[in-house]
């Protein structure tokens, strides 16, 4: 279901002109970091995007024509009208913090923990920002493009049990 024209119009009147694009009828909007929480609250409370489908991240390192390192992606849905909207925030090192969406959608809890685990994006105000997939003692962020596919040897950093000692 494509976005109704009122959604983007409402955002533009409230927050000024935002860069938008469309892919196969699905609208996407790019938001600045300091506007993010306000935009998301407006989308949730006034435009009734009541479902946070996913939070994910893209690492644009070595990507052609990319101006920013990370693109944080929020996928929203309105379960009454089936309208969908993609919200993006671009982030660059060294400041990889964004406000948490936990207070807006409770479902952001584990989604943001996964993005933190894989990309190292810090969600300020998150109640429990721990690793969710990797072991706690893991130190790297494995889905960053500068992390080697086979890791840095963490997968073999375990004691060896032999017949005589087990």
């Amino acid at each position: 279901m494509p976005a109704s024209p009122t959604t983007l119009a409402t955002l533009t009147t409230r927050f000024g002109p935002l860069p938008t694009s469309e892919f196969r009828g699905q609208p996407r909007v790019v938001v600045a970091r300091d506007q993010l929480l306000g935009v998301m609250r407006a989308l949730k409370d006034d435009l009734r995007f009541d479902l946070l489908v996913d939070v994910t991240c893209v690492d644009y390192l070595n990507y052609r024509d990319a101006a920013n390192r990370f693109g944080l992606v929020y996928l929203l849905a309105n379960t009454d009208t089936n309208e969908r909207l993609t919200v993006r925030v671009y982030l660059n090192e060294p400041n990889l913090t964004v406000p948490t969406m936990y207070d807006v959608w409770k479902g952001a809890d584990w989604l943001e923990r996964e993005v933190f685990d894989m990309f190292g994006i810090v969600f300020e105000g998150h109640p429990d920002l721990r690793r969710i997939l990797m072991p706690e003692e893991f130190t790297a962020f494995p889905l960053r493009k500068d992390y080697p596919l086979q890791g840095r040897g963490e997968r073999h950093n375990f004691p060896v049990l032999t017949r005589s000692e087990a």
Partner: protein
Amino acid sequence: MAIEVPENVVVTKLDELASWCRKNSLWPMPFATACCGIELMATGASKHDLARFGAEVFRFSPRQCDLMIVAGRVVMKMLPVLQRIWQQMHEPKWCISMGACASTGGVFDTYSVVQGIDRFIPVDMYIPGCPPRPEQLIQSIIDLQDKIQREGTVEGKEFETASRQQTKRALVELPMYGRKSLVAH
């Protein structure tokens, strides 16, 4: 002059008697983490009928088992669990590495997947396949029974000699995957 032995008495060696008892009463511990586990279940079910080889009693407690069947890939977070379960099993115990993933990591050559459980626990039998057919698993159990009968001793001396395998399971990456200095500490 030969000593008369009654008809209902059989003479054998104690080691062979113990091994004969052990090999025909293997109690598998299913460590099934992936699709190999489905073949493992099929092997235990009526069609392939592992009971014919005395190994049908799958127990989910390591305290009651003596054969660990690792069926599937093992990731970094699972390996300490695997080692703990292996340590909880009673001697004498054996291990079958079932399928490509458990034996070598298979197609999952990534940062989180252990490239073969034999780097960290002792393995007696490897089964190729992705996943192996139940017949292959049955064949490996028959081979393991053979091995137990051939090498088994009452005191478990055969396990002490296996410490020679330690150098094989070295804590180094293969050269193609990067330098040793990159191993995290």
